[in-house]
């Protein structure tokens, strides 16, 4: 095997640790099954067939693999929720609805290394007893869908999918299902509804936990693209060995997607927790733009709570207690949670001092108002209300009390909705108001305090005399 080389200008940064992204931007690499097989492709699947399915789940548990889609929930534990003595079919769904603003990792896996995903899925299906799997891919990835279709056909032809795969007696079909352009389809129960041909209204939990009552009310596992790819690598080296990358409880590698005000935005696969925010921005992304200062970072996709550049974060307990600046934060699940935000989907959005905070928040609120599915009251009514307020803040048509209302609306959503979209839509506003209240208020005009903007309120005010 010759040394791997990457296309010019696309070379991984030395601080990267490429596992899942090993073949992304690689010189001479293509999406064909021949290329994939030439480097040990589907060997792990063959190996899996020699193992007990439960042993594979055990390896995934040992690895401590946490979901790369946003919630960071341990994948092996998720698989363990499948009901024992189940007699219904089990489904596995690959969530390729990568829609969180600031996140663009799954598309590169799909576009450049689709067989890695298919192998990871096949192994996962064998482990969980699924004979039918779906890749739910967002509408905005038409090319990705075609690449996956072709890859599935190739895998079929080579006997890695279909009946009696490699003489194992195990049957598996994978279908690509394209979404229709809705963020909510990334929420696993919304995705399942959509796959069933319905509006993607997320289901209430309880009782509809997918592992017990998922697709067609059968046990269903929903995992992110990157998560499923890792399963292949866990099998290759063993769960224990795999868990030696990264840091304890934050094992393995993950792909960070950096966008916004840096010299060199892009994707970087790093060992979880081994790279700090400072290293990510200053080393890997070439630092901030010329003459600019850091104002804020949204560390885990647009729904993650914003971190202000001058904050001091107290993390850890007891002997482990320490204070961190934004630059010192190791990019792992637990530390970012301790800093009051989350690692989320790995989408790191960098905001420098050229940006108006009102504009940034309004941009986010626009997205969530547009994407709220409208099923449950708080998110449906609240997300548009927040957008309308920040629309006015940006336009200079808001008064200071609007900022209090904005925060009040967000807190009427947070924790009260059917799905996590409620938090996704309200955390940006809550955190921006908490951390940048002065700047938001500065964009308002106290003289507009008594202005009513809807006809109904004008009438009501007149009647109050």
């Amino acid at each position, binding site marked *: 095997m010759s040394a791997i080389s990457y296309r010019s200008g696309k070379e991984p940064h030395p601080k990267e640790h490429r596992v899942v992204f090993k073949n992304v931007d690689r010189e001479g690499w293509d999406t064909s099954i021949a290329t994939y097989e030439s480097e040990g492709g589907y060997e792990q699947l063959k190996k899996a067939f020699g193992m007990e399915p439960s042993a594979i789940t055990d390896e995934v548990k040992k690895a401590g693999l946490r979901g790369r889609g946003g919630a960071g929930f341990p994948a092996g534990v998720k698989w363990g929720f499948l009901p024992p003595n189940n007699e219904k079919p089990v489904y596995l769904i690959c969530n390729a609805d990568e829609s969180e603003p600031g996140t663009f990792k799954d598309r590169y896996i799909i576009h450049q290394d689709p067989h890695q995903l298919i192998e990871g899925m096949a192994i996962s299906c064998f482990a969980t007893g699924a004979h039918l799997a779906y890749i739910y891919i967002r509408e905005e990835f038409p090319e990705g869908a075609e690449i996956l279709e072709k890859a599935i056909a190739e895998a079929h032809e080579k006997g890695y999918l279909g009946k009696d795969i490699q003489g194992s007696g195990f049957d598996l079909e994978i279908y690509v299902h394209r979404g229709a352009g809705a963020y909510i389809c990334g929420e696993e129960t919304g995705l399942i509804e959509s796959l069933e041909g319905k509006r993607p209204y997320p289901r209430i939990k309880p009782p509809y936990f997918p592992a017990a009552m998922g697709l067609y009310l059968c046990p269903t596992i929903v995992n992110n693209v990157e998560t499923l790819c890792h399963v292949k690598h866990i099998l290759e080296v063993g769960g224990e060995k795999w868990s030696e990358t990264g840091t304890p409880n934050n094992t393995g590698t993950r792909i960070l997607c950096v966008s916004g005000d840096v010299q060199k935005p892009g994707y970087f696969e790093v060992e979880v927790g081994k790279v700090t925010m400072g290293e990510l921005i200053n080393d890997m992304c070439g630092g901030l733009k010329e003459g600019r200062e850091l104002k804020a970072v949204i560390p885990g996709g647009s729904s993650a709570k914003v971190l202000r550049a001058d904050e001091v974060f107290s993390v850890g307990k007891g002997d482990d207690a320490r204070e961190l600046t934004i630059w010192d934060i190791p990019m792992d699940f637990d530390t970012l949670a301790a800093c009051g935000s989350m690692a989320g989907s790995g989408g790191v959005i960098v905001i420098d001092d050229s940006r108006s905070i009102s504009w940034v928040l309004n941009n986010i609120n626009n997205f969530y108002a547009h*994407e709220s599915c409208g099923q449950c*009251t708080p998110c449906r009514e609240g997300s548009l209300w927040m957008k309308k*307020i920040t629309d006015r803040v940006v336009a200079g048509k808001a008064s200071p009390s609007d900022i209090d209302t904005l925060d009040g609306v967000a807190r009427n959503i947070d924790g009260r909705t059917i799905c996590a979209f409620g938090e996704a839509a309200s955390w940006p506003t809550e955190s921006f108001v908490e951390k940048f209240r002065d700047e938001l208020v500065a964009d308002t005009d106290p003289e507009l305090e008594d202005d009513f903007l*809807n006809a109904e309120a004008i009438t009501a005010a007149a009647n109050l005399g």
Partner: protein
Amino acid sequence: MSEEKPDLIDVQINGEWHSFPKGTRMIEACRQVGVEVPHYCYHPKLTSPGNCRMCLVEMGMPPRPRPGDDPPEPDEDGHLPISWIPRPAIACANTIAPNMGIRTESEMTEECRKGVMELLLANHPLDCPICDQAGECSLQEFSVEHGNGESRFREQKVKKPKNVDVGPRIRLDDERCIMCSRCIRFTDEIADDPVLGFTDRGSHTVLTVYPGKELANNYSLNTVDICPVGALTSNDFRFQMRVWFMKEVKTIDTNCATGANITVYSREDKIYRITPRQNNDVNSDWMPDSHRLNFHWIESEARLTEPLVKDGDQHRSASWQEALATTADKLAGLEGSEIAVIASARMTNEELLITNRFVKHLEAGHVDTVPRTGEADGYLISADRNPNTLGVKTVLGLDDPGSQLSAIQEGIEQGRIKAVISLQENLIEDAGFSADTLKKLDFLLVSYPLANPTADLADVVLPGAAWAEKSGTMLNITGRLQRLNKAVDGPGLTLEPWEIVRDLIQATGGGNGIYSVNDLFQQLAAEVSEFEGLTWGRIGDLGIPLIETGETIPLLEREKERIAKGLIVG
């Protein structure tokens, strides 16, 4: 937890411990102990999507000790302490668990309700003064209890379609809709006609009827009943009357043998609307549109409002006294075998009892009722379109109602039968009698609410009350005894059929001491074995099972299946 009662679970509600059967929803547990949890989307007969969020409550469970920690100590009643969860839970779809705590009056619960109310009203048009739902609107009711009083919403409201024609009987105002999806679930789960759905997203979501379809099934108006706001309104009722002016009377539908329980809404003796009334043994919460809207004839121009007697070829108005005296005269010279009494399976048991007396008093040789049948619709409409066929069998003692009608016609044709007394029936249009046959009679008496071809031929016409104008009891297809209650007074000189028959007995020389329908009921209870020992009060608003018929109501059977599957509360 007390082990002695394995099917009961102890739950603390607002500080008090109660026991409920396993599987009870939190909202129902609260209701059972008199704690109301406000809600919009939840309906016990439909699945629970949990979308309105109005029923959010603070909830707690016993603390989970960390490894090494001591388990929590139960108190002297065996209850563990409750560790309150910082995230509120919906009470509608969640079932109770052992040692669960529910707080419906805590700050967290109240904040949730206030928040949801504010958000529901943000884009609501607040057009209560012209909204038909005003006065019976859940948004109004919960605003009083949980609203903010003033609005923080300064923005332009979302504009949506108004006055949308979604079907022949229903109109939609999308701006008033709070997207609770009750109507969508009803049409899908109960009416098997899933033509409604949401389109667009977020705050712009609109309720829509599927392109090219309409909400036209015979149960469509139930969506208006369960709409918690004024989004769906009935074309028949909208803008006719403010709901708070109307008198409500609990009674039963008489359009078929199911006997759906209903409420009649009237003002000054005019009926404005009918809605189904919950009875889980008869009609659940529903009724067919065709039955619900079949009341406008009651105020028709064709109503008979005074007795008529024939003068040559013409009818003229008469007093009750004259009409009854005429009847007595005509019957006086006849043998019992020359008289036929045709009563109605639309009559109450009390009316049938006194008709039976009348038949015996006249020694009438012939008695029958007129059957009405149609197709059963597989939901609530029975093939028997008479409301009290079972009463005819039980009280009037006819084994096979309708079997004598052709013999009676033959008897008239052959001159053996000279007089027919037709009580609350229209023999030409509903029993297939020909006018020529009836013309052969020496005497024809017709009591009926409306003018009709049979009455045209009658020597004496008596104005009988319509179903909504009389009281009594009926037996439905399943053998359930139910009360029909008078909702409005009949027009003019109309009398209830039991009064008419009583007066006929008196006019023909019989006597009885009957002054009220309740006197008749007491006699029923004394004389008819099935009714033995019953009192009017014991029947109650929901009726009581009286006779085993083995008949079932298809819609109820399907609801039972859904209850058994845990899909609905029931």
